[in-house]
């Protein structure tokens, strides 16, 4: 069995600040981390490998320093690491990223399962995983809390707005993972980190994966970011309490006071 896990290096958003003048992220001194959802996806893959045997390949796209998340994956138990790094990929949106990652997955040979985090904490789009499934033409299970393998079947418990859904599909398939509430990320020991240097690691360019340059980078990205800005701070809410009748009266008072009822009252 071969599981591919797609991971992303993201700025630790708890420490990111925005330069209000330029509308860009201030990344100086902000540590980079593995996207936490991807961390869980990675550990899920390694758990499945322990259960069923096989191999795990960890793949990322990013600048050379993104090797860090690959090495973390290898230290945690993945067998092979692949970093897609090439100036040609720069500026890729989720569509172009999905295309590039799917090309890399294909190049690794037969894959039974692809795991991704449900979204990255820097972009919050949740599009890359489904995009990869689309590009590969395989079924996708989004927002999975766990994934099991039974022969050719992939079974998952997925979170929905109203509860959980238990779904199954045939391999090969792709699942995007949520973060379970009680989940604790594990980190490798110094020895595992040191030993991970001996594992197979590839850096692939756009050419290596046979990517069509029209589909990657800024040129291949239909999305354009115009501006980044922090959402305006919400005003403080006013809490009112009392019986239903009292609440209605209080509410009407507030609406009158704030002049919200003008149009309504003028109506008659």
């Amino acid at each position: 069995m071969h599981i591919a896990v797609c991971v992303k290096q993201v700025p630790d958003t708890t420490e990111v600040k925005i330069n209000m003048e330029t509308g860009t992220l201030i990344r100086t001194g902000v540590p980079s981390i593995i996207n936490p959802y991807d961390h869980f996806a990675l550990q899920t893959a390694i758990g499945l490998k322990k259960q069923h045997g096989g191999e795990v390949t960890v793949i990322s796209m990013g600048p050379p320093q993104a090797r860090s998340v690959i090495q973390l994956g290898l230290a945690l138990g993945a067998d092979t690491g692949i970093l897609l790094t090439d100036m040609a990929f720069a500026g890729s949106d989720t569509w172009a990223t999905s295309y590039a990652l799917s090309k890399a997955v294909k190049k690794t040979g037969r894959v039974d399962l692809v795991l991704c985090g449900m979204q990255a904490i820097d972009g919050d789009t949740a599009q890359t995983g489904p995009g990869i499934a689309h590009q590969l033409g395989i079924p996708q299970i989004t927002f999975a809390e766990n994934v099991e393998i039974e022969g050719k079947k992939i079974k998952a418990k997925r979170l929905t707005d109203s509860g959980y859904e238990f779904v199954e599909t045939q391999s090969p398939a792709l699942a995007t993972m949520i973060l379970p509430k009680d989940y604790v990320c594990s980190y490798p020991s110094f020895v595992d980190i040191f030993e991970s240097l001996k594992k197979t690691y590839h850096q692939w360019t756009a050419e290596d994966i046979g990517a069509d340059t029209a589909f990657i980078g800024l040129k291949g990205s239909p999305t354009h970011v115009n501006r980044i800005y922090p959402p305006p701070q919400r005003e403080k809410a006013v809490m009112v309490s009392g019986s239903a009748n009292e609440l209605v009266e209080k509410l009407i008072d507030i609406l009158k006071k704030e002049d919200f009822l003008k149009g309504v009252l003028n109506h008659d």
Partner: protein
Amino acid sequence: MPSMDTITRNLMLDSLKDYARKHLPYDFIRELDRKNEFPAGVLKQMYDHRILGVHLLMIPVEYGGIGGGTYDIYRICEMLARIDLGIATSVFATFLGSDPIRVAGTAEQQKKWMSKIAKENLFVAYAATEPDAGSDLVNLRTLAEHVLKNGKLAGYRITGNKQWISNGGVADVYTVLALAPGGPSWFIVEKEMEGFSANKHEDKHGIRLSNTAGLALDNVYVPKENLIGETEGQGLLQAQSVFGYTRLMVAAFGLGAGWEALETAVRYSQQRIQAGGPLSEKQGYTHKLIVPNAVRLEASRAYIEEIANRLDKDSHGLQTEGAIAKYYATEAGNRTAEDAIQALGGYGYTRDFPVEKIKRDVKITCIYEGTNEIMEMTIYRGRWQEHLKTRGRYYADVADSMDKLNPDAGADSAGLAMNALGAIMEECRLQKLTRHQHVTFKLGKLIASAEVAAAFARATAQQAYSESVKFDSRTWQAMSRICARGAALQTAVEGLALVAGAGENPQGLKEKLNLELIQEKQQGLVLDMDFVADKLKQTFKAK
């Protein structure tokens, strides 16, 4: 030993940070500190190769370790100190205790003991200090007598007492310095050897999580294979040869503990409103309690990194530099913790905030691994030799090299500090003032601040920002300028006072020191401090 690549090292730091986050919350540490308790279980976990394997960093790869370089160990020591200086000390004691074997052991001894320490997660202790022999190891009283079998040397019987031994009561293996017939020598002693015992865990001012105990050796028999290096009389040289490296680690402790305290103060200062605004907006607060400490700590970092990189290339020596690093960074860390208590006011004085504990803990860094007064002496001795050997050119040459660097990095003032230092030393030579011990120690202090300022300016001018630096280049430049201005002024003014105080104030020394130019260079100091105060606030936001 070369250091690892940045990514590998940072992954290890992440794992260590994660371990501390999960297992060492402040309340837990605080309780152990209150109870004066050594957390053996925590340390064993930290040594466990499946969990962390932190001690493996200093063990060569061929013996089952991961062979970290000096730079790697500095980074880990800094983080350990940020977590808890007692735990850091305990880990360091194993590093230090193994050093005589790592540095001076025969191939066979290294293989046997380093592999054993790696595999069995052994705690090690370094036992040199005695009741009557601290910094002055020449007064060593612990004796190692020959034991003969059939007229041939079979082993030694060791008798004596050791004091203030880190890990003393908990170690599995001890490297013990004792006086053999051939002179001071290191021996490997195991805890279960007959006649060996440890005294009670000391009730200390700080680092209460670290076990400190005296040792009693009563006719302890060790086989001759346990004489490190299998040659008697090499003990003091062997001890000396690792000081450059071990003192750099203690410097990293001062740096880590200092930053932990300062970060707490910077975050606090943005929340505490006094007289209509947060403390972080008031120069009377920031320019006294915060900014000068940040500057000294980052200067320490620049110096430590320069020396760590040199040790990784050259792997031994640099004793004067190790002493400068230890002296400057631990004084900086100690001062910062003191100021952090002041910065937190009443809260700082309580045990609810960590700065009170950091202050107690960090004081030890000014004492152990050679007191800071011994550092002043060591620094003076090393550089006085250079001054004489080069006929006074030593600092003039460094000053010249500073002139070639970007003045925005403070290199101009650092050059003035170097020049002033050379002039003061020459004047001391002419007037034979080093017959006063006070003068020599004070020179040691001035040398340290001037050399650290020069290293800071070098790193800043060469844009040698390592992964450990949390500030942008403009902030480091401002910090370096503040540091260099202060060092130049301090060297010249204190140097003048020293010469005048111990001898005569000669005509023309003031001109040689360039005092007027040094004063001119102070221009822009307050603006730079404003800038740094602002950057610190942005970097360490209120939580």
